[in-house]
C-alpha cells in the first residue's frame, strides 16, 4: 500500500526538522519527538515481508536507472566519459544537462538492462575510475557554479583485485571529500540501492532524498547474511534487522525527504517516477538557491558532522 498523503507530509516535516543541525543528536525538540512517535506508529506496521518487498522493488529489473531519469529530466544532455587518468567506467555516469533551463552536473551509478549491458556496467558497481569520473565532473560544476545532482543506485563499490590496486577505498574517500568542498548546491537522491561506501561516495550533499522504495544501508542484506549466518539465503532476516527502508532512514535523520513513486513502484511508470523525482529535485535546489557558497559548504559539513548517536 502506498503511504498516505498525511504520512508523506509528516515525513517531510520530520525530515526538515531533522536537518536543522541544532536539533541533531540528543537535543530534540518536543515537536520532533511527537512526529517521531507518529512515524514510529506507521513504521511499526512494516513487517519483515514488507521490508523485503522494498528490497525487491529497489532492485526490480524494470526499475528506472540513472539514464532513464536523465532522458526524462534533462535537456541538452552531454555525457562526460573521462576520468582523466585510467579509463571510462560504465558503472558511473557523469554529464552536463539543463534542468528547466539551468545547467547542472549530474552524476550517478548506472546498472544495465540486458545481460551484455549489465556486464559492461558491472551491475552498477563502480571501480575507482568511476568515482574519479564523478568527482572530476563535480569539480567542474564547482568551477562554473553549476548545481550538482547525484543519483545513487549501486549494490556497492566493485570488490575486485584491480579496483583495490587502483585504490578503491581512497577513491570513495576522495569523492566524499570533493563533495564536502563544493561551494555549489548539491542534491543527492537514492533511486534504487544505496549500498554502503559505494553509495555514500556520491551522497555527501546539502539535501539527501530517497525514493519511497529505495534502500540505503551499511551493508547489503546478502553481505550481512553471508557474514552473520554464513548463508546469503538469510538475506530477508538481515534486511529486517537493518531496516534499509526509506522511513527508517528518515527517522534517523539520514535522509531529509522521501520522494514518492507511482502506485506499485517506480518500475510501473517511468514517466511518472521521473516527474515526481524531477519535482523533488527542483524543490530542493530552489531551497538552496541564493545561499552563499561558503555557507552551503559549512552547513553541509555541519549536517553530516551531527549524525550519530552516543552518550
Amino acid at each position, binding site marked *: 500500500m502506498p503511504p498516505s498523503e498525511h504520512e508523506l507530509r509528516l515525513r517531510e516535516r520530520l525530515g526538515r526538522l531533522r536537518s536543522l543541525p541544532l536539533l541533531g543528536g540528543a537535543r530534540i525538540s518536543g515537536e520532533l519527538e511527537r512526529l517521531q512517535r507518529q512515524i514510529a506508529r506507521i513504521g511499526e506496521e512494516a513487517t519483515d515481508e514488507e521490508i523485503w518487498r522494498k528490497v525487491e522493488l529497489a532492485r526490480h529489473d524494470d526499475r528506472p536507472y540513472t539514464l532513464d531519469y536523465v532522458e526524462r529530466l534533462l535537456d541538452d544532455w552531454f555525457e562526460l566519459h573521462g576520468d582523466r587518468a585510467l579509463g571510462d567506467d560504465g558503472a558511473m555516469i557523469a554529464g552536463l544537462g539543463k534542468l528547466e533551463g539551468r545547467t547542472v552536473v549530474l552524476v550517478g551509478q548506472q546498472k544495465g538492462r540486458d545481460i551484455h549491458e549489465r556486464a559492461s556496467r558491472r551491475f552498477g558497481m563502480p571501480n575507482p575510475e568511476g568515482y574519479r569520473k564523478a568527482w572530476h565532473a563535480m569539480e567542474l560544476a564547482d568551477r562554473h557554479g553549476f548545481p550538482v545532482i547525484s543519483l545513487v543506485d549501486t549494490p556497492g563499490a566493485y570488490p575486485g583485485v584491480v579496483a583495490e590496486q587502483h*585504490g578503491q*577505498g581512497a577513491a570513495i574517500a576522495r569523492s566524499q571529500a570533493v563533495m564536502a568542498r563544493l561551494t555549489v548546491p548539491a542534491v543527492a537522491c537514492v533511486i534504487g540501492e544505496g549500498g554502503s561506501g559505494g553509495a555514500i561516495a556520491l551522497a555527501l550533499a546539502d539535501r539527501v532524498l530517497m525514493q519511497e522504495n529505495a534502500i540505503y544501508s551499511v551493508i547489503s542484506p546478502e553481505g550481512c547474511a553471508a557474514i*552473520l549466518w554464513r548463508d546469503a539465503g538469510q538475506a530477508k532476516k538481515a534486511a529486517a534487522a537493518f531496516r534499509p527502508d526509506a522511513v527508517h532512514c528518515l527517522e534517523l535523520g539520514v535522509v531529509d525527504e522521501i520522494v514518492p513513486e507511482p502506485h506499485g513502484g517506480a518500475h510501473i511508470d517511468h514517466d511518472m517516477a521521473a516527474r515526481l523525482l524531477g519535482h523533488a529535485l527542483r524543490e530542493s535546489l530552489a531551497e538552496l538557491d541564493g545561499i552563499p557558497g561558503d555557507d552551503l559548504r559549512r552547513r553541509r559539513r555541519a549536517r553530516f558532522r551531527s549524525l550519530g548517536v552516543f552518550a
Partner: protein
Amino acid sequence: MAKIDVSVETDDQPSPPPSHPNTCPSCHSHYRDDELERSLWVCEQCGHHFPMRARPRIASLVDPGSFTEEATDLHSEDPLGFFDLRPYTERLAEAEMKTGLADALVIGRAAIEGRQCELAVMDFAFMGGSMGSVVGEKLSRACDAAAEAGMPLIAVTSSGGARMQEGILALMQLPKTVAAVEDLHDSGNALLCVMAHPTTGGVLASFATLGDVVLAEPNALMSFAGPRVVQEITREKLPDDFGRAEQNLRYGQIDAIVPRPELRPTLSRLLRLFDAPE
C-alpha cells in the same frame, strides 16, 4: 526484531589465529609477554608485526607523561536495539571490560620528541576496531582540537570497517569524519595517517586515506573489500600480497611503509617538517 550474530564480523582475528597469540604466525617463533613488549610486538626473527593495542602504541610514540586523553566520557548507544547472539549493549560492555577502553578509538594531546600534536589511535581489540558513532565523533573532535591548537593530527588506524550493529548511522560516520578532516585541512593543519594491520572498509574509505601523508606498517592489509569477499564475488585468483601495504605502495596508494620501531622518529621528523609547535 530478528536476532543476528555479528560475532564473526567483529571478533575475528584479521588473519587465521596462530596457535598462541605470542607465536609468530609467519615464522613460528615464540615469545614471552615481556619480550614482545620490549620489541614493540615485532617478531625479532622475521619482522612480523603482531597487533598492537592502543595504549602501548601511544606509550611507544609519545614523550613520557606527555599524553592527555580527551573525550573519555563518550560511550556508544544502541540506536537499533540490535540483537545478534547477544544484545549489542552486552557486546559493548564486554569489549569495555576486555580492553579497558570506552570504545575503539583513543584521542588526546601529546608531544613527540618535543613537538606537539593531537593523536588518535584505534584499537582492533575493541569490536574489531569497528567505526560507530563514538569513533566518528572522537575522530571529529580530534580534528577540531588539532585545528584549534594549530598542530598536526596523527591518526593510527586498525579497523575492520563500519560497525554493523549501528546500521546506517555507522555508514554516516564516513561522511562525518570526511567533513571533519576537510575542516582540519581548511585550518591549515596537517593530517598524518598511519595504517596498521588491518585497515579495511569504512575507515579506509574515509579519514584514513585522506592524510596529507599516508604511512603504513609492513604487511598491513589495507583493502576496501576483504580478500574473502573479493574472492567470492569475482572468482579471481588473488595475488599473494592482495591489499597489503607493499602492493599499495607499488601502486602509488601510500607514501611509505614504516616498520614499527622507526615510527616514532619518522613521525617526529614529519612533525618538524610541518612545523608543529614545540
